[in-house]
């Protein structure tokens, strides 16, 4: 019966393209981008 393809870690309903965050065929998580730290003004 195949598998539930929504369990492969890809957001098939995403309005954005998937390939930008496609980590690898073995990974069920999108590629983790850089954690965005906000440097508060006071430190500039």
């Amino acid at each position: 019966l195949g598998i539930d393809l929504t369990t492969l870690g890809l957001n098939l309903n995403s309005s954005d393209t998937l390939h930008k965050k496609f980590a690898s065929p073995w990974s069920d998580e999108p590629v983790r981008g850089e954690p965005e730290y906000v440097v508060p003004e006071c430190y500039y």
Partner: protein
Amino acid sequence: DSDPAGFPGQVSSLFSDWFKICEFPGNNDVACARYVQHLHQRGMLKGDEISDRFFRRIMELAVSHCLSTEVINSSSSQPHQGQSLSFLAIDSYAKLVFSILKFCPSDQGSNKLSLLPKVLNVTVRVIQKDAEEKRASFNPRPYFRLFINWMLDLCSLDPVFDGANYQVLTALASSFHHLQPLKVAGFSFAWLELISHRSFMPKLLTTNAQKGWPYFQRLLVDLFQFMEPFLRNAELAEPVHILYKGTLRVLLVLLHDFPEFLCDYHFSFCDVIPPSCIQMRNIILSAFPRNMRLPDPSTPNLKIDLLAEISQSPRILSEVDATLKARQMKNDTDEYLKSKQQGSTFLTELKQKLMLSPADAARAGTRYNVPLINSLVLYIGMQAIQQARSPSHSQSMASMSSFLVSAALDIFQSLIMDLDTEGRYLFLNAVANQLRYPNNHTHYFSFILLYLFAESNQEVIQEQITRVLLERLIVNRPHPWGLLITFIELIKYPRYNFWSKTFTRCAPEIEKLFESVSRSCG
């Protein structure tokens, strides 16, 4: 044959010089350019045999250095999480190649990248040789890292190489084709990750207005051809299952981001996906152009014939009649379609021509030549549609049905009567593979299936037609639009007398199955 005396020593000292340059942090373009100039003066970059030896030797040095740093972390629970490797030498080698391409003085006219195919050629041969020699102890990860470096550096090129992106992408695609799993099975996982990499696949499919499509189509076919023998069985060995799931992920990215690519090459993919791989094939057949809106198949009184797209031909980039030609069957088929000469032996000999010799049957896992059946069915359908559109026939369905009672239908009906269960299943599969998004192939082949069902006086044939449709519907989604509308038509309209067939009630679970599928079809 071995390197000239002293050559390996020369190369390893050259490489250690390069290592020192790489260790300088920050931008050291000047030092890199000077070093490349030095290599050029020593005759290492002429693109001749010495160049090949130079790149091969350095690559082997980098790989052996990388593997010498392998620390088996046996404590790790995951089987493949174990080894940590240092890629310092590999990254340096990759950077050397990038610097050579960037700074190497090129002869008048020859473009900056002329050395790239040579470097990739050496790379392919070293990997193939290493895999042949090491077999089960072959380690693909250094080579994987090398290609990742080149993808990140070369596929997002400096202005220096402006416009050469496509050249790099196709050169890499050709290398991957020569490293396909059927040739280097030990490289399969690394290979699939490379060809689907976000720095490679999307660029190959979008750069240069789809000119890269044939290259990627070939790579996908390479993958399917490798997996085909393993996928004939439902039970998959763990590594095959991982590769299969990885393939599904790649196909889902293509379905979501590049559906037109799957639409236009569906025919060649169906040739190499085993009939048992229903869900994987459904992903490909469910693709439809992004600018198309599909009407809900369960809309009451949906008028398929009135859909604008239903009379348009789908784009098919594979050569549909290639296999027919290869078997010298195209002329006879054309002859029969045109003249339908009575009493010809075309129909009686057809079944035999579709069969494989016992030896080939053993290898192919079936007694029939599946690509030939696929080619014959689609080719005949396309001819029939074309003739139905010719001026002498108007567009309406009436003319379509009058036209159907003609050569094309004769062939389909004789096939469904003459073929045995396996042959008939493959024939019906070839027809069902055309049930996709609204286009005139979907329309025609949906009509053919329903017509063969209605006209058949053998319930076993009607059951098999139902089985071919049903097995594609009971698997997990996605389901092709054309498949849904065909099944809905079959179970809804009295002319097919579907619910009176005994096979719809041959067992309680089958009865429940039909009810649940018809409910899910609305």
